[in-house]
């Protein structure tokens, strides 16, 4: 199973020289096993999906963690949607009030988008998910709601050999008093348990988080603590804040390694870099 990071940025896409290394596209991850492709989230990073990979597919699966704009804003520009011979499956969290179609329609319609959902040429299949378990080709996928404003799920994807967990927007620490709590009370923990790779929200420093409690995002420190508690094998810090330049991210990372005394042999931790790939086997 190969994972490629197509977009690392949270909230807003950013294009300036100071963010070139870690990247400026918003959340999108490519997962490939043989010729089977999964696309996680449809931020602007979806536009980085390789033309060669797209050319091999006539059926696409886009798994949306939630419908905040930074996770869907690339959807309207995803070229396969405009090829009538394609089938595109969009998987998204169910809501108590509105269907997935109604919620996507709020974006894929004027005045926010010039093309109506109903006029998109490809055949679209919408799948509403919650605490769900399903297969797409060789992938087995589990989803469950996690702590973030609005209906939001995380994904656990396995191919029989390895496990990849994707929790890009996650404020599991909200209201939690200390880490000695029983694991079953930690949002997202079951999805992440013993994953070979965990991609997790780490938008804020501890100081920045003081003014952003309840916004739905995690600190670098708490992302590491979560990963340790879930016994994951590798952690990728994700959803970089638009204000964090490459230089600033590296300062934060260095401080994190020093402060947290992370044993890199037991838990390798990296900052997500746009374009970087991981082969999980």
């Amino acid at each position, binding site marked *: 199973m190969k994972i490629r990071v197509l977009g690392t940025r949270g909230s807003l896409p950013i294009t300036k020289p100071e963010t070139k290394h870690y990247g400026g596209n918003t959340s999108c991850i490519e997962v490939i096993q043989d010729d089977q492709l999964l696309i996680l989230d449809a931020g602007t990073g979806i536009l980085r999906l390789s033309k060669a990979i797209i050319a091999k597919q006539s059926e696409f699966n886009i798994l949306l963690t939630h419908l905040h704009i930074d996770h869907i804003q690339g959807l309207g520009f995803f070229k396969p949607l405009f090829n009538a011979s394609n089938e595109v499956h969009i998987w998204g969290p169910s*809501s108590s009030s509105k269907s997935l179609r109604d919620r996507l329609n709020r974006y894929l319609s004027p005045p926010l988008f010039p093309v109506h959902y109903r006029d998109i040429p490809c055949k679209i299949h919408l799948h509403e998910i*919650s605490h769900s378990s399903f297969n797409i080709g060789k992938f087995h996928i589990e989803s469950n*709601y996690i*702590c973030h404003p609005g*209906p939001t799920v995380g994904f656990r994807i396995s191919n029989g050999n390895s496990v990849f967990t994707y929790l890009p927007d996650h404020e599991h620490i909200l209201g939690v008093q200390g880490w000695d709590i029983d694991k079953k*009370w*930690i949002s997202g923990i*079951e999805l992440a348990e013993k994953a070979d790779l965990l991609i997790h929200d780490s938008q804020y420093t501890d100081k920045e988080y003081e003014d952003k409690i309840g916004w739905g995002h995690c600190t670098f420190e708490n992302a590491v603590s979560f990963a340790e508690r879930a016994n994951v094998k590798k952690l990728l810090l994700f959803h970089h804040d638009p204000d964090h330049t490459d230089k600033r991210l590296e300062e934060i990372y260095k401080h994190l390694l020093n402060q947290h005394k992370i044993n890199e042999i037991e838990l390798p931790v990296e900052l997500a870099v746009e374009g970087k790939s991981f082969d999980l086997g």
Partner: protein
Amino acid sequence: MAAHEIELILSRQLAESLSVAIFIVDPGGNLLYYNEPAEDILGKRFEDTGEMPVEEWSTIFKPLDDAGNVFPPEKLPLVKTLSNQKPAHGSFWIEGLDKVKRSLNVTSYPILSRSKDFLGAVAIFWTPEL
């Protein structure tokens, strides 16, 4: 280890943040958690009691009516909510685990997920002097 659904997790997180006494149960009625304000009323820390089956918590606190008679478990608001998945309200007395008798007002509501699954129930309670 089966993790709790997010609705129960968020209920507990909210309970930890409030000064209102809160008691959380699963769909089978088993006590999952009560918060610090509830500890003051029930007379024992949650850390010491831990999770409890419904047969235990519905009697261990010795619910009584105004005349001092046993208050039937099936009339407890939380037990009603567990039975019909609707909010309920009631007043009665309890003898806490500290042997102190207290009058209680209790309101309970079901935790129903976005897909209408019944995941448990919450009771908030307070003594009349509050």
